[in-house]
């Protein structure tokens, strides 16, 4: 089975930056299925912009390994989805190609940074999509748009071809309407790639099972505290109740390092970003730099013109956090905090199999509402810890508040995607029944 898929969606939510009107496909596990790919994942021959003007016109000469795997299993790559510029945002509003709207309520943000992928799935334009998650960028939009999104264990999915924002934190992961579809995509993309030196050879090969009898679910108090909308917390507690009804038990756990988590996360991700984003200078790719100027002047001019304010802010923040005289106070301390958080999770996972909490502290907020960086950063508080710890986490829809979706977040031990997938699947099936 092979052919081409015609794809001409009604993209009223601005979910896509690029669409492929005829997408070739072959036989395989995903034969002929339309899959949308976040625009920070390299696709040979298809423009890949990261939502930035500085990569406008960039046509990668190679496929990211996850894309190669999708194609090999027959998927039709139908387009590249909108995103916060370089993944730097939680709303998809920092995209240079305009914000994506939330299909549930187009006056609201879809979350981010994989907002385009979430919206494309939620709007029914594609059944499955790839996102990437650095501090919540798959789970946040999944929660806000009412779809399922999985951030894999760090090192389980190849990053080769994922345009780096914060290399030590991010993973490519699947988004879909059902846990089963998320699991299907995961079993295609989680394959060892020798080109990624941070990868483990731990392929995912699993069919979801709703049998979760005896599962111990940890409930961290920190995930239900200050800053979390009580109505969101209530929905999530109800959802955990459903899981209990299916044979799981709950245990209170604590992640004391949570108080550092967001600061540590932002120091580390901006530090790495300041280095990762430095290569965009208009010499080797992207809009041409003015070669008549001297190099610093030319770079500064093109980077000012082509990078958005949030990217410039984070690059500068990271530059500062690594600079002489400040690296000890910021970068080194953030690594120390990260280690504590990792240990907190390890300790908690001695007593429990999964940890459950809300994905986001609130439901999707109106477009244009959050302009202040700190209040924007605060929305990552519940998702970033899993990235710092390198553990898998899934967001599964668990009801609505004011008609807007709420996400239940389930985190697991390293390489135990199977367990959180089963728990999410059991919940999903339990609610359906």
């Amino acid at each position, binding site marked *: 089975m092979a052919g081409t898929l015609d794809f001409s969606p009604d993209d009223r939510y601005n979910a896509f930056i690029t669409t492929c009107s005829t997408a070739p496909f072959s036989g395989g596990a995903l034969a002929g299925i339309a899959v949308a790919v976040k625009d920070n994942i390299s696709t040979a021959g298809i423009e*890949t912009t990261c939502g930035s003007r500085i990569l406008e016109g*960039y046509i990668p000469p*190679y496929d990211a390994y996850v894309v190669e795997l999708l194609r090999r299993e027959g998927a039709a790559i139908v387009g590249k989805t909108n995103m916060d510029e370089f993944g730097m945002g939680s709303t998809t509003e920092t995209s240079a190609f305009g914000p994506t709207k939330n299909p549930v309520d187009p006056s609201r943000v879809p979350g981010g940074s994989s907002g385009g992928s979430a919206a494309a799935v939620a709007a029914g334009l594609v059944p499955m999509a790839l996102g990437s998650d650095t501090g919540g960028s798959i789970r946040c939009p999944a929660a806000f748009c009412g779809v399922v999104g999985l951030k894999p264990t760090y090192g389980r999915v190849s990053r080769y071809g994922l345009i780096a924002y*914060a290399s030590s934190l991010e993973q490519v992961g699947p988004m879909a309407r059902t846990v089963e579809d998320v699991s299907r995509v995961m079993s295609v993309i989680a394959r060892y790639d020798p080109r990624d*030196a941070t990868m483990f050879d731990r392929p995912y090969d699993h069919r979801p099972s709703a049998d979760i009898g005896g599962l111990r679910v940890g409930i961290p108090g920190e995930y239900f505290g200050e800053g979390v909308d009580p109505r969101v917390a209530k929905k999530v507690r109800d959802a955990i109740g459903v899981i209990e009804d299916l044979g799981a038990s709950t245990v209170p756990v604590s992640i004391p390092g949570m108080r550092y988590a967001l600061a540590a996360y932002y120091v580390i991700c901006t530090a790495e970003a300041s*280095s990762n984003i430095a290569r965009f*200078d208009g010499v080797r790719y992207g809009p041409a730099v003015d070669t008549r100027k001297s190099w610093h002047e030319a*770079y500064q001019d093109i980077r000012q013109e082509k990078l958005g304010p949030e990217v410039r802010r984070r690059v500068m923040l990271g530059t500062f956090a*690594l600079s002489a005289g400040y690296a000890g106070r910021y970068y080194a301390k953030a690594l120390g905090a990260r280690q504590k958080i990792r240990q907190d999770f390890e300790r908690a996972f001695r007593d429990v199999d999964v940890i459950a909490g809300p994905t986001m502290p609130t439901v999707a907020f109106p477009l244009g509402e959050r302009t202040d960086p700190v209040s924007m950063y605060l929305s990552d508080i519940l998702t970033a810890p899993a990235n710092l710890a390198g553990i898998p986490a899934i967001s599964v829809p668990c009801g609505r508040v004011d008609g807007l979706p709420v996400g239940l977040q389930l985190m697991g031990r390293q390489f135990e995607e199977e367990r959180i997938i089963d728990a999410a699947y059991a919940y999903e099936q339990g609610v359906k029944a």
Partner: protein
Amino acid sequence: MKTIVGLEIHVQLATATKLFCGCSTDYRDDGPNTHCCPICLGLPGSLPRLNRKAVEYGLLVAKALDMRVLEESDFARKNYFYPDLAKAYQITQSDRPLAVEGTVEIEDDEGHEKIVRITRVHLEEDPGRLVHVAGASKYSLVDYNRSGIPLLEIVTEPDMRSPQEARRFLNKLRTILEYLGVFDGEREGALRVDANISIEGSARVEVKNISSYKGVEKALTFEATRQRNLLRRGQTVARETRHFMEGRGITTSARGKEEAHDYRYFPDPDLGPIRVADRVAAIDLPELPTARKNRFMAQYGISLNHARTLTGDPRLADFYEHVAPADPILAATWAADILLGELNYRNMSIAAVPADRIRELLALLRAETITDAAGVQVLREMLDACAAGRPCEKPADIVKREGLARATGDDFVAIVQAVIASNPQAVEDYRAGKKGALNFIVGQVMKETRGRADPRELGRIVSECIEKGGV
């Protein structure tokens, strides 16, 4: 006022592929940007993967220099902007290099042995190459073929006391690296040096951009003189970075061109740590230059000077061992004193010399089938043929073709007598006791016979002829 010199040497390791990607390192004969891939071009999304061979070569050097390999080392990103730097950071090693605390033994200016301490060695990637286009519109052209070539940076303590010591250190280091087989000195730009030089008590100057080991002595000599002259005039030496202008043999201040750098090093999240200290014990080092030199003297009975020269390049030493067995001393004289000079004259590498043919030539010399002078002629013919890419004839065939076989005295009596006959004045001078006259006559005969006769034997024949009173 002592001169104090420390060096940072960048050596391109002779791996088949680049440090972090599979692109071939053999780029020198190819066009720009033909040995590139997404990784060494720094294309978005590409990731580095470390070349095992580069680590092994680093360990080999560490062991040869008697260094301590760190239990765990890692790679860091050195962040700066320059058009030849594809990712705007160089992957290098910072706080945790591969190995620290080594030594290299050299001779000081008085000929005594001295130790130069090695601070550290670490692996890093070479940037691309820039061509500066001048004229009305100035711009740069970038070739990323060199981007990602593995470099071993070797940093010394400030233990050298003169430009000559620095040169000797570099020669020794280069020889060691060649013996280890980790470095090909014939590749252009394969060894680059930054030098720190100061006059004791004054500020240190860093001289960058010395692209040949021969340039080091020149650059440092210029710089030492410049600094001493400043001090002599009562001025102070500024702490600064200077560039060596190879063509003009001078250093110029880089002031204004180099900003105060803040490289913002941090561990590269794309590369995990290296733990290889436990592999050092199993490494078999090849015989190193000092050991080989000592063995040559003991085994072949050759002089220190010959042994030092012959072991100065592993290929020359191998060559010597190939041709030595029949007559080691004769072979040493020919290899060290005659062959090297002929090679230098032709700018030829020892690698291009057919050792078997040289062995045949030495056999002819040893059997006194030809004279030394004829031997040199045969050697030149052979080298010229090799240099021109022609097949190298057997020396015996050249001797036959050119009629260079050693002439015994009897064959030449006629020529000798003819020469004596046509130089009556010289004969008279000789009879009057002027020794120089004999040499003159012998020289005339040598000329006539194109070196086929032994000069000493000829002297005897000439005297006999004259004394017999033939004329």
